């Protein structure tokens, strides 16, 4: 059973466009929702994270939107650049645990 569902599987965006990746979760006990970025041959790197007490968090060109009632959260990449081309993973975890449940990943390609 996939507790965190991520879509789309792949995404192609033109340089300067907005990239949007969506995740949905089932377990209402989740209280921490990070996004990771992974380049080929590298480990996942924490990009941005949110907790359910806020509906939006922005860091530079990256924004997480969180909808608690719909049990959904999304990553928006504004002014997408070719250097943003990577695989993006959403994740979730429960209170008092360090276990991250990952989504299935989205391969983003940004073309000039």
């Amino acid at each position, binding site marked *: 059973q996939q507790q965190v569902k991520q879509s789309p599987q792949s995404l192609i965006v033109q340089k300067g466009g907005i990239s949007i990746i969506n995740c949905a979760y089932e377990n209402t006990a989740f209280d921490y929702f*990070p996004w990771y970025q992974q380049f080929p041959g*590298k*480990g996942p790197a*924490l990009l941005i994270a949110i907790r359910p007490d806020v509906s939006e968090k922005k860091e530079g060109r990256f924004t997480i939107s969180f909808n608690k009632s719909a049990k959904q959260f999304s990553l928006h990449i504004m002014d997408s650049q070719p250097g943003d081309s990577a*695989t993006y993973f959403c994740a979730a*975890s429960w209170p008092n*645990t*360090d*276990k991250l449940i990952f989504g299935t990943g989205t391969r983003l390609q940004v073309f000039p």
Partner: protein
Amino acid sequence: DTAVSQTPKYLVTQMGNDKSIKCEQNLGHDTMYWYKQDSKKFLKIMFSYNNKELIINETVPNRFSPKSPDKAHLNLHINSLELGDSAVYFCASSHRDRDAFFGQGTRLTVV
């Protein structure tokens, strides 16, 4: 450099062999993990240790045995390797805020 480092980066071995992957973090974190990333890039936790104590042990075959000699090190030993063990194994560490930092991965290929 502050980081999570794991060795080796690549490991090619024959079925039935025993191999180890080493991990060290100098971030001062209390918790360390092993994650497995399969050929479809799906990431799944295998183990976590907090201050050398096993906290999480997912449904992983007994052939996989983690060992944490101190809170900065977490090694993974795999016995009797099988073809299905081929994957990328990531070590990670975190502190109380749950932001996990990952190593660069060890690509294990069993032939």
